[in-house]
């Protein structure tokens, strides 16, 4: 689904069809189904942000769940204090963006995968603060009873309106990311991924762009968190541990890092697979992680990569630039 692969109008049609499906799918369904769909959208947003960091800027962040926590707790505390969700949202996003800058600045000064280690340690720290600072975060008991937002006469108290609200936010977030990726700015990200040395020699300040990609990606994590609070109306530190950061990271990789629609697929797999593999009971994570390793051995570019491979086999097209195929891989 990259620029060269599908004809533009076909792609537009596909997107409209998918959007229509997303609108029609939950009609007449049970609340639980709508809840699963909503959490799929929320994790897609978190994964989209991480995709910017991992797929476009080539840095590993192991703190996406922590940024979700920052967004979720900010929203929870402010809406509990009587502020509207729309007021708490920019506060949470700004917080995540700034924390992203502060964490990323030292980590990206040096070469190597230092951001991975810094964010790994940060995840531990956030978990500790959430658990220990009971006066603010409620400790292990967490926070509960957060109201869902109302927009005039449109109340999101019921599951279906909340789903549409989340869908709207997801579409806006996707459009925002699309604009970023397509802007000259985003092209710099792309140049960075394809060939960092050449990008640097052409005057792209790689360090600054990587830092910005990470900070924006973190803000997307905050946005996802701001939606988790009104969805579940109960948050506690355990929902934002390292396991969840890893889960989001694997979503990006499974979907296809560096592909715009990768996170949608990856999040769907991670949300739906436990339902499909329910008969295996506790062994679900074992099977899943083994499958991920097998996938990385054979198709490191993820499920979208499998799709591309199959299509190239049955419907070969003229190769414009063989070296562009490299970009599909993780850097």
């Amino acid at each position, binding site marked *: 689904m990259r620029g060269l692969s599908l004809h533009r109008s076909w792609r537009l049609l596909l997107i409209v069809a998918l959007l229509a499906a997303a609108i029609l799918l939950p009609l007449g369904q049970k609340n639980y189904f709508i809840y699963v769909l909503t959490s799929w959208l929320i994790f897609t947003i978190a994964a989209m942000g991480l995709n910017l960091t991992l797929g476009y800027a080539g840095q590993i962040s192991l703190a996406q769940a922590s940024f979700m926590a920052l967004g979720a707790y900010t929203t929870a505390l402010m809406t509990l204090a009587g502020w509207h969700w729309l007021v708490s949202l920019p506060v949470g996003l700004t917080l995540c963006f700034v924390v992203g800058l502060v964490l990323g600045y030292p980590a990206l000064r040096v070469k190597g995968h230092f951001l991975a280690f810094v964010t790994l340690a940060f995840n531990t720290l956030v978990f500790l603060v959430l658990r220990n600072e009971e006066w603010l975060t409620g400790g292990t008991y967490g926070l509960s009873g957060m109201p869902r937002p109302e927009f005039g006469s449109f109340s999101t108290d019921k599951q279906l309106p909340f789903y549409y609200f989340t869908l709207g936010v997801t579409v806006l977030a996707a459009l925002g990311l699309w604009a970023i990726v397509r802007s000259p700015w985003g092209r710099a990200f792309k140049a960075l991924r394809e060939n960092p040395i050449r990008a640097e020699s052409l005057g792209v300040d790689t360090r600054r762009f990587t830092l910005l990609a990470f900070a924006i990606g973190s803000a997307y994590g905050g946005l996802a968190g701001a939606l988790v609070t009104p969805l579940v109306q109960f948050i506690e530190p355990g929902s934002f541990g390292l396991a969840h950061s890893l889960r989001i990271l694997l979503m990006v990789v499974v979907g296809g890092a560096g592909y715009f629609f990768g996170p949608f697929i990856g999040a769907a797999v991670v949300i739906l697979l436990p339902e499909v593999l329910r008969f295996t009971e506790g062994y679900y994570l*074992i099977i899943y992680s083994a499958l991920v390793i097998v996938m990385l051995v054979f198709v*490191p570019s993820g499920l979208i990569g499998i799709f591309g491979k199959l299509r190239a086999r049955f419907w070969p097209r003229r190769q414009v630039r063989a070296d562009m195929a490299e970009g599909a891989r*993780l850097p």
Partner: protein
Amino acid sequence: MSQFLQVLLSGLATGAVYALVAIGFTLVWQAAQTVNFAQGEFVMVPAFFVLIGMHWLGLSFWISLLFGLVVSIVLLGLVFKKLIVEPILPHGGITLIIATMALGILLKESAKEFYGAEAQPFPALFPGDPINLFGAAVSLRDLLNLGISLGVVVLLTLFLNRTRTGRCMQATAQNPGVAEILGVDVKRMVLYTFLINAALAALASFLITPVYLAKFSNGETLGLIAFIAAIVGGFNQIRGALVGGLLIGVLDNLTATYVTAQYRAALPLVLLIAIILVRPQGLVGTSEGRAV
């Protein structure tokens, strides 16, 4: 004063075990560009192999230790290299890092599902009786852990510097291309590195599990501490990881005793950021090969 000495010594003892893990991590990083995010799980798992030997196969404790060591070397060394590192490394460093993260989840969940979610008691290698040393009550176990770990580090250093194989391994880590031209069997040397890493992780596991009990989630903190120890020390050499491991062990104990027990787990983050800002090549590392 005696309390300080006690805290210092038990910090050194745990730190020396951290150092073993950090050294293995460094060796593999150097020799095969593999940042092993499952390193913590590599330390968690061998204890379970020993428990399997004792409780499922009915072996005696010391035979089980040997069994655990051999199984670890085969699975975490040979199989890890052949089945995961070799096929994935050509896809790029980040892909491999993510594969090791998936492997970490796999090992952790396997230990949980196949052995149990509760912490399992693990027999101590040495009696934990306190002995009196300069007025401080020190446990014999701490002293022996420190002694054994340091002994292994010395042996490993001698092996790497004094034997032909060791020097070939160093050459491989520094410049595989040139090493190959000079007739070094690079593939074999890389394999040795993985085997040594697995053995070090197993040893660390046997020394530290009597204190922590065998639990599937042990790897999380151990891994983080090993990474930070390797980075703080400077990962050009073994002594970097050694210094880093000892430092973190001592600082961790001092923080827990004198500053805050609630936030002792925040120490690695603080140390990591401080070292990146002040001395990114690590405390004893040389800046060469680590462009800022």
